[in-house]
């Protein structure tokens, strides 16, 4: 009795055999997972494949090798049909993968189609007519130990090994295979590259399942009858269910998830010693205030330190005072609950930077253009919100967002301001950004400024010393500079709406999400017989032109003359002057006809 007849060798040889069905199925599931599809319907597909494969063995005519080949083909075809159903549901009809997989198991599994076919085709409890026999394909079957284990198996076992190599090659070295992985890892990016996500998904779904179903043909060798209990899915121990899930697990865990395309593309960020730590742009709390700082790169110590700071800050969130980290230095965030408290804080900390929507301040923090020691978060100050009407004048709170100015009473009273608000950034920006912020930033390109200027708005400034109002024209003193004192906060803008026809226009490289290359607001004030126009992005501050309404035809020339544009990244002075002329002509046409 040789070493090859020992129990250990026999068990291992059987292990290889029994592992083969799982290998087939795992390879199928691997393809599915790589294309981004979680297929829980494997069991149903396998059982139908098994029933049909066995039917092929029983029915096909011809020599044994042909019968077995046909049977494998039948099983694969049956699996393909099943996975087509699954692919149609999940890819074409976009149904949930998990639920569809379970539904497929109910449909095709041990109490469904497979059982029906098994009984109806008379397959249950009948011995198989043909079976795969072991072949010694490499002539190595007599080797001690490894011979019987590896080289005395049937054709399907060898086929499964070949398939491993083929699929590895397919996924790693061919264009369609790489496409599959791309679709699985990032469908959006794949779509942008021109790969058909739906087609890849369904093709994969079909092909992979076809393969897995051959596995059942192994059954005839060991149990030369189709086990009824197996068909009804009620075996104890490591049954088909369990096998299915092992496959899912194996497909997820084993094959090189280690180097995904994404992580391979990701460049490790290296931080020079002493370089400033960036506040991660997307770490914003609901109040628009950075809650936690993140560090690029792998500087563990820095990260640990910041995380501790972040955790400490998180513990203190309920208090008005927050500490966050920016530029490697601690930054205090003060969140007053009332205007009185806010003014007191501003008096104590004149250097504190007021933040409302954060659409301007956060950009500066993120690009490390500014490192304020104290941020004054005005989001929780109720007095600054909304708008009200007093003696025919409109009070726009400095916390009034563009989204609020776009609709309702404000839009009716100040149509040009509403038009301007609609052109600001994206819906998200419009929901956060505020008129007060636009005034505070005092950018020549501020979209809310020209409409307010043509309507003769006044800015209300408050401090612990008292409240004063300044006409908007005097408030704007230079590019990004305004006339407020360090201890003052902008609390509102006052406007007496003229009610005249008015409009706002701006020019940018596209129609949305742009900062104006130049902008123009025009109002025809019939009561005073005056035409007023204000232009933005064409001078150090937003400029105003006003003249009698009867001279309206001269508006384009007067605006172009008054503008003091410069050449910059967004446009040249000559272009701006020209564009203002065109805008003025259009605006006249719009409001006077």
């Amino acid at each position, binding site marked *: 009795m040789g070493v090859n007849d020992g129990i250990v060798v026999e068990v291992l040889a059987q292990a290889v055999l029994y592992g083969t069905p799982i290998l087939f199925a795992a390879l199928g599931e691997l393809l599915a997972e790589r294309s981004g599809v*979680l297929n*829980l319907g494997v069991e149903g597909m396998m059982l139908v494949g098994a029933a049909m494969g066995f039917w092929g063995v029983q029915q096909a005519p011809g020599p044994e090798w042909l019968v077995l080949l046909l049977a494998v083909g039948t099983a694969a075809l049956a699996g393909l049909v099943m996975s087509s*159903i699954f692919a*149609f*549901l999940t890819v074409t*009809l*976009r*149904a*949930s993968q*998990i*639920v*569809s997989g*379970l*539904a*497929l*198991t*109910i*449909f*095709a*599994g*041990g*109490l*469904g*189609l*497979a*059982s*029906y*076919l*098994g*009984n*109806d085709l008379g397959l249950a409890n009948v011995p198989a007519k043909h079976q795969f026999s072991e072949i010694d394909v490499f002539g190595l079957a007599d080797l001690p130990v490894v011979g019987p284990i590896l080289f005395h198996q049937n054709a399907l076992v060898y086929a499964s090994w070949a398939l491993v190599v083929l699929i590895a090659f397919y996924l790693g070295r061919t264009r369609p295979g790489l496409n599959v992985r791309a679709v699985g890892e990032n469908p959006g990016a794949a779509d942008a590259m021109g790969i058909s996500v739906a087609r890849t998904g369904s093709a994969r779904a079909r092909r992979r399942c076809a393969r897995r179903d051959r596995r059942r043909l192994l059954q005839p060798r060991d149990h030369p009858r189709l086990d009824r209990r197996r068909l009804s*899915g*009620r*075996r*104890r121990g490591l049954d088909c*269910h*369990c096998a299915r*899930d092992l496959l*899912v*697990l194996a497909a*997820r865990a084993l094959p090189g998830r280690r180097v995904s395309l994404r992580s391979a593309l990701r460049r490790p960020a290296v931080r020079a010693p002493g370089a400033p730590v960036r506040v991660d742009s*997307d*770490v*914003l*709390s*609901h109040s628009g205030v950075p*809650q936690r700082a993140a560090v690029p790169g792998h500087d563990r110590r820095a990260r640990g330190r910041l995380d501790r700071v972040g955790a400490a800050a998180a513990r203190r*969130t309920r208090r008005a005072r927050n500490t966050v980290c920016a530029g490697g230095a601690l930054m205090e965030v003060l969140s007053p609950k009332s205007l009185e408290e806010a003014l007191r804080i501003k008096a104590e900390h004149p250097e504190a930077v007021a933040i409302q929507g954060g659409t301007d301040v956060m950009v500066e923090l993120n690009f490390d253009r500014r490192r304020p020691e104290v941020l004054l978060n005005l989001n929780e100050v109720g007095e600054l919100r909304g708008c009200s009407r007093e003696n025919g004048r409109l009070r726009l709170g400095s916390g009034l967002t563009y989204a609020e100015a776009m609709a309702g009473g404000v839009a009716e009273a100040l149509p040009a301001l509403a038009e301007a608000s609609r052109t600001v950034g994206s819906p998200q920006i419009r929901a956060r950004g505020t008129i007060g912020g636009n005034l505070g930033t005092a950018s020549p390109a501020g979209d809310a400024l020209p409409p307010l200027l043509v309507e003769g708005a006044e800015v209300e400034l408050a401090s612990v010393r008292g409240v004063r109002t300044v006409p908007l024209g005097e408030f704007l003193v230079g590019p990004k500079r305004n006339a407020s004192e360090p201890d003052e906060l902008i609390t509102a803008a006052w406007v007496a709406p003229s009610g005249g026809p008015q409009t706002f226009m701006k020019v940018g490289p596209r129609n949305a999400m742009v900062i104006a290359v130049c902008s123009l607001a025009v109002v025809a004030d019939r009561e005073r017989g005056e035409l007023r126009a204000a232009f933005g992005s064409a001078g150090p501050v937003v400029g105003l032109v006003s003249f009698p309404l009867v001279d309206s035809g001269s508006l384009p020339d007067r605006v172009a003359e008054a503008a003091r544009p410069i050449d910059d990244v967004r446009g040249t002075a000559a272009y701006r002057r020209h564009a203002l002329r065109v805008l003025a002509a259009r605006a006249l046409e719009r409001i006077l006809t």
Partner: protein
Amino acid sequence: MIAIERRLKQPRWLSYAVPFLSVAVAFGLIALVLVSTGHDPWHTYRRIFTAAFDGAAAWNDTLTLATPLVFTGLAAAVAFRMQLFNIGAEGQLYIGALCASGAAIWLGPHHALVFTILAMCVCGAAGGALWALISGALKAFARTSEILTSLMLNYVAGLLITYLIFDSASPWRDVSTIQTQTFPQSIALRPSQFWPTASPGNLVVPFGFLLAVGIAVGLYVLFRLTRFGFEMNVIGDSTRAARYAGMRARRKILAVMGISGAVAGLGGASQVGDFSHVLDASPQGLQAANYGYTGIVVAALGRYNPFAVVLVGVLLGGLQNAGFFLQGADFPSGLVGVMQGIILFCTLGGELLIRYRVRFGRRAAAAAEATP
């Protein structure tokens, strides 16, 4: 040519009409299958209806089958609502049944029924919740896929109860008679420990079903009226947005997995207290019923709305009930699964019509040209 485009508005009536349409289509398809396999569809449908919903006896069976489905459906709905794919309701139900029967056996028959039920429910829910928290903690702290861990834990739970009843001398195992020594079985509940039923008319409504409806109401309140439910929805819709808003996804994952597991565990407790009165570890018992997996289908068809889950649970319970009734010499059991599968496919596929518009023929071509 066919084009599928997203609807700008989803009319409310559509979300009610489409499921009915889908079921109608499904019955049409099933009729084809039945005719081609030599059965009379009309006759079969009448038998399904009679078996599932005609008369008190039919309803009693339907409710018996529906009760565990409602529990597992609710368990899945809680988790899936937050995009937390807890496939483990199956195992959580086993553990719930295990703990609940353990509580009943340990307490013995000499306590007030209310106390026994309370103890069983608490133990069942706690057991299910702890089992679910294994996956939950792995997800929250190690970012493991909860789909895989909860799925694999189902088998661990199944093998655990099999071991306790069949392969060991555990406190659950009944060794009092020669019969139970030969055919292993768990210690049965005494009649004084059976859960009560409500019986309006001839109908027998199990206590577990009422409990499930109560939980559905509780979950509805949780989803709609509490901050917790709101945060669940936000985290489900966008984890990043939730994080920016300062919501704590990790805690929520643990809490939601706990709730989900507790509901499934209660399902197990109700299974022991209401129906089987033993811990049925045999291959034909708890483990063959696939309550957990079917519950996921129930939850999906009910769109994770607790009340819809109850309704779908009852309908699916009826369908299963009809399936048991139908199968016999003239009606192969395999066709029952095929019928159920077709209904599920149609309702799942029909969901598309709610969110998308399908255009055919020349209009589709025109639409495709209009939107380059």
